[in-house]
């Protein structure tokens, strides 16, 4: 099977967010970047498991600038066969999706893997967009995937439950927790990654239709009100009268 995994770069989860003076951008000094956990832990690993079971190849793709190469190398170290970076500074989900679709359309991938969301913008949009550009089915929030021949059985998270669906390749899916178990790259993988191909292709022109134009920080939270452990009636009263939530 020919498999594609779309990987994105996100700030490390404990990153403190600070804005520039006019609130139009984030300060990037001191920000550490990681591969988006859903892409790394679940999407990539499930793709590798599939390849190990049925043969084929796993390609990792990222839309971004040269600074992303360390993250792409990590995908190679975990086990992807080759990687492609589409050289662009991405500014919107639709722009990223267009680039991935342009690259993928002539490659005939059987399954395209996404993470359920990038943890920076929490959009959960790119996968559905690529699937639409390529006119293929899209199963979001997959937490189980079994493939036999051209037929895949996928379980997906829905509100308060699971849905199981059957679909033929080619299709796209987004990976949620449960799809696979995280793999840590070993020394051999890291050494081998240096010799694996990382191809850089140029982006196609595409006009953004939506763009973040300003940022603000949420208002600071007022200090916690401590309640005497021997007076839980007081807590209940406050929840009822002050917070009005019960």
């Amino acid at each position: 099977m020919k498999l594609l995994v779309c990987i994105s770069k996100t700030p490390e989860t404990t990153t403190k967010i600070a804005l520039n003076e006019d609130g139009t951008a984030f300060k990037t000094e001191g920000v550490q970047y990681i591969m988006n956990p859903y892409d790394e832990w679940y999407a990539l690993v499930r793709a590798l498991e599939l390849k190990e079971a049925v043969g084929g190849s796993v390609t990792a793709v990222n839309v971004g600038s040269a600074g992303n190469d360390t993250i792409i190398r990590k995908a190679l170290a975990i086990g992807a066969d080759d990687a492609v970076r589409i050289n662009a500074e991405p500014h919107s989900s639709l722009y990223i999706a267009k680039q991935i679709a342009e690259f993928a359309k002539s490659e005939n991938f059987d399954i395209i893997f996404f993470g359920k969301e990038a943890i920076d913008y929490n959009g959960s949009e790119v996968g559905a967009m690529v699937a639409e550009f390529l006119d293929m089915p899209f199963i979001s929030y997959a937490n189980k995937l079994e493939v036999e021949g051209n037929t895949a059985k996928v379980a997906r998270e829905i509100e308060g439950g699971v849905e199981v669906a059957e679909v033929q390749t080619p299709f796209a899916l987004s990976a949620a927790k449960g799809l696979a178990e995280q793999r840590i790259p070993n020394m051999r993988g890291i050494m081998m990654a240096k010799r694996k191909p990382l191809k850089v292709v140029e982006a196609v022109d595409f006009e953004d239709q939506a763009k973040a134009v300003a940022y603000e920080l949420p208002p600071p939270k007022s200090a916690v009100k401590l309640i005497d452990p021997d007076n839980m009636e007081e807590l209940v009263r406050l929840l009822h009268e002050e917070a009005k939530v019960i």
Partner: protein
Amino acid sequence: MVLVFAEHQNGQFKKAAFEAVTYGYKTAQLMGTDCAAIVLGEAEEAGILGAYGASKVYHVADQSLNKLDSQVYTTVLAEAISQLGATVCIMTHTSTGKSILGRLSARLSAGSAAGVKELPTVSDGFKVKKDVFSGKAIATVSITSDIKLVSLMGNSLQPEKVGDAVETASLEVAIPESKVKVLSVDRVEGTTPLPEAELVVSGGRGMKGPENWGVLEDLADALGATTACSRPVADTGWRPHHEHVGQTGIAIRPNLYIAMGISGAIQHLAGVNNSKTIVVINKDPEAPFFKAADYGVVADLFEVVPKLTEAVKKFKAE
């Protein structure tokens, strides 16, 4: 026109659908236009959406639409948007909405904003705010395309009744064949699913073991709340995975989140810090969660939670 895609489950409309219509109605007012709703698949009471401000409710009642296929839904919605001349399309930020918003955006070359919490401003272009970095910042997104797509985060505004139910109108659209065969849908019966729950009681590693969950469940029962947990708790199998909230689990925004025995790591907060009111019960006064809490109780949870449960019962009885 503002068109609201109103979701239902086996013909039943949930609060999220009414919230979306209320949001659509208010957006339409800002823009000086009408709000309509569209319902896909069989649903008996679709006209009820009129009460929340949809002046027309279009219903494509074909039973092939009873189950979601994002590709089919997108084709139908794109056709409806074009037939009706809608310039804004609103949906809920649920598993269904998320799988359609992106597709529609690609299909129509329309800009989108996913998971917004406030009404747009329209005086200087169409702009909406949404959380980014798991709520650590808020972005203003400007959408410049002719058609604008927005998904609304649940529990962001209260549904408001502004009129009466209306008659539904049918809409002639071609429905393509689905490439996805849904084999089964399993929902946990009884309790409100976490993403829709207004009251949530959650436990962490401080609970010490799965055998101790009775204390937490008693409180949840007394409140009528849904239960949740931190990641290590789900990972070690003390509780089912679907209860795991946080950055790698689900993000929730209930009215009340009660956390016991949870330290409040940033990745946990990422999934819960949008809750309206947070109560933290922890024996360690230095636990970081207290910084994000509205009310705190510094105590051993095994001693204090049963007292809280009793106090809730007493309150409910009055």
